[in-house]
């Protein structure tokens, strides 16, 4: 998915195999500031693998990822990532987990924790152990952890998992807010309606590469119809 302009996050010719299976076969991707890209596609087509490669967590077999012109592994502090797991310690409280994340990111300024907890609506749960949180609350804490250092690029792998309707709407508002502020967002999801209002571009990954990409269609059904068409070939 080459872009006319150099993006904030650029991936070139990404390949990745698991054993004999080629999951990604030379994938290009470029996303600029203020864009929100939704990546859709059937299960097992490498969406999560691609996101992990973009985050520098998985090494590609071939190709390169650059963030702001430098290899992504040298620009980790400029990236927020939420995967399938929460990355939280079960035996620490929400506040302790977020404080630790802030210290790792070097953004543990006085008063910052309160603001982060308030933004994630986690203030009433700050002293609860993560192991005692519901899936939805843990997901909110995980999102707060991923965004704690206000990164210019955010990669979210199914961030709406476990969230109730109100929390999902709140997350969509946060995504719109971040996108408007110039953050580049890549969203992987199975249900296009989740976060749809924040999305500016869509792409469909299948058979090791992009089978569709373009600006966001007007409605979710229209997009889903296009996805069905391209997957039917």
């Amino acid at each position: 998915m080459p872009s006319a302009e150099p993006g904030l996050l650029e991936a070139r010719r990404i390949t990745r195999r698991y054993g004999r299976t080629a999951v990604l076969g030379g994938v290009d991707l470029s996303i600029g500031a203020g864009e929100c890209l939704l990546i859709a596609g059937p299960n097992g087509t490498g969406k999560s693998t691609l996101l992990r490669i973009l985050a520098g967590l998985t090494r590609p077999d071939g190709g390169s990822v650059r963030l702001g012109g430098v290899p992504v592994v040298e620009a980790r502090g400029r990236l927020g990532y939420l995967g399938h797991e929460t990355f939280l310690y079960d035996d620490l409280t929400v506040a302790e987990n977020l404080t630790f994340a802030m210290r790792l990111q070097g953004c543990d300024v006085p008063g910052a924790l309160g603001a982060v907890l308030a933004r994630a609506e986690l203030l009433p749960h700050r002293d609860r152990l993560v192991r005692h949180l519901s899936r939805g609350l843990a997901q909110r804490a995980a999102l707060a952890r991923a965004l704690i250092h206000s990164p210019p690029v955010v990669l979210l792998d199914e961030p709406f998992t476990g969230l109730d309707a109100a929390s999902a709407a709140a997350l969509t508002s946060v995504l719109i807010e971040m996108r408007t502020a110039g953050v580049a967002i890549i969203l992987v999801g199975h249900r296009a309606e989740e976060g749809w209002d924040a999305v500016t571009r869509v792409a469909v990954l299948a058979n090791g590469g992009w089978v569709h990409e373009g600006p966001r269609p007007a409605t979710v059904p229209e997009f889903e119809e296009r996805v069905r068409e391209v997957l039917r070939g």
Partner: protein
Amino acid sequence: MADLVRIAFAVAAKDLRVEFRTRSTLLAAAVFAALILVVFNFSRDPTAVPDSVIGPTALWVAVAFAAVVALNRGFILERQNAAMDALRLAPAPRGALFLGKMVANLVFVLLVEAIAAPLAVLFFDLPLTTAGWGLPLLLVLASVGLVAVGTLLSAMAVRTRFAELMLPVLLLPFLVPPLTAAAGASQRLFDGRPLSEVVGWLRFLAVYDLVFVTLGLLLFSAVIDE
């Protein structure tokens, strides 16, 4: 340098907080060490091997195996909810992550020793006053090396399918030199020999510490990043 210390402190504090909240590993390691000492105590023949020989040996065997239990915990904790990925995503010097993990592991091992050493003194009637200040120095020097190599290898082992089994297999060969030095030096200390007789062992342990702490700081990035 300030970053290194700040992040190492944060990692160590986090690990210690989790452990002191659950107390699971510390308790298991301490009980394990005590059991080894009890078995040695009841299976020895005092007329065949003097207490000053079997006692320090039993102590270091107990410490080594209890340390494996404690070291396994360090990175198993990071597998919880894939927290290791959060460490890998952090723009933190990898040496700081190693140092933080190592310091937390060192505290565990020293706590286990604080329980095991008095038990060894009690069971084998070791003359504590004879050993003097050489004994705490020896315990610390031996523990630093043991923990440095253990932290590095446990970070490698945790990425395998059988992490708990892999660590002892990888670690124990590396522990032969420091354990031999520690057991030899502590026997001489409990025998009331002068400190000058164990200086060679202490120097060896200091060099071992230096080598493996340096290797840990340099190689940790290659171990945790894909």
